[in-house]
């Protein structure tokens, strides 16, 4: 897995590519998120467009990230989830945990006036 990072206004975007499956991936994601939080970002957006698959260990990475960000008073959202990954979210009911957006503009806009979660976008 690789991570590209980009700040768009007050949203910190992590673009993952490859496969999300634990091991060194966990450290890489955690460090990127901690660094964004340290820089003062509260709005984090994870782009899964180029992630071919996620295993349960990869799901664990997303969940820990979500918890870390929430504990710091921020929001972690996901966007551009493939059909394959979405099916794992459905089966594990993680679709009730993560806010998922189909498009980047929708995802970015959703952070404006965020104070509680809004419903998951249709996929």
């Amino acid at each position: 897995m690789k991570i590209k990072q980009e700040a768009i206004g007050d949203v910190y975007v992590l673009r993952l590519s490859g496969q999300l499956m634990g091991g060194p991936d966990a450290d890489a994601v955690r460090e990127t998120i901690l660094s964004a939080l340290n820089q003062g970002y509260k709005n984090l957006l994870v782009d899964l467009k180029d992630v071919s698959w996620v295993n349960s260990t990869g799901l664990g990475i997303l969940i820990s990230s979500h918890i870390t960000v929430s504990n710091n008073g921020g929001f972690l959202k996901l966007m551009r989830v493939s059909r394959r990954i979405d099916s794992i979210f459905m089966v594990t009911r993680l679709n009730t945990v993560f806010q998922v957006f189909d498009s980047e503009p929708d995802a970015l806009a959703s952070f404006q006036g965020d104070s509680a979660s809004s419903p998951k976008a249709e996929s």
Partner: protein
Amino acid sequence: MAKSPPESSNGSGQNCIKLSIPSRLEYLGVLDQLVQAIAEQMDFDADARDAIANSVIEAATNAVQHGHQHQSDLPVSFWFEMKGDLLDIWVHDSGPGFDLDEVTAADPTGPEGLLRSRGRGIFIMRAMMDEVEFDIRQGEGVTVHMCKQVTPPSDPGA
């Protein structure tokens, strides 16, 4: 459903593909591609192909992480047996085994489980395959057997 891995019948047979990979997560991508190709050859649809690949990856992840504790020189073995529209898969590691009842007692989709970062692998396999069984033998390792049948396209007239 056959319970023992085809190992016991010599692992040969006209319809059995065998694979072994080192215990390294970085090879799971190669495994994914092989499983997708086998499932495509058998005419599973795209969702079923993903379900099968996800499940084999979960079993392989457990073999690498828990069974072999990332000792990369220990091979994880796979058998794919294609009988008509039925795909039987065995995933074997030579690790110490575990107590299945204990680890599957917790529901990863319940309020307690939902935010745990672990404990979803076996659940995903069971949700995505037709049948999943564990053959856990003290000192002989763990063999996960799972199978899935090609679903005929649903008949809109039925």
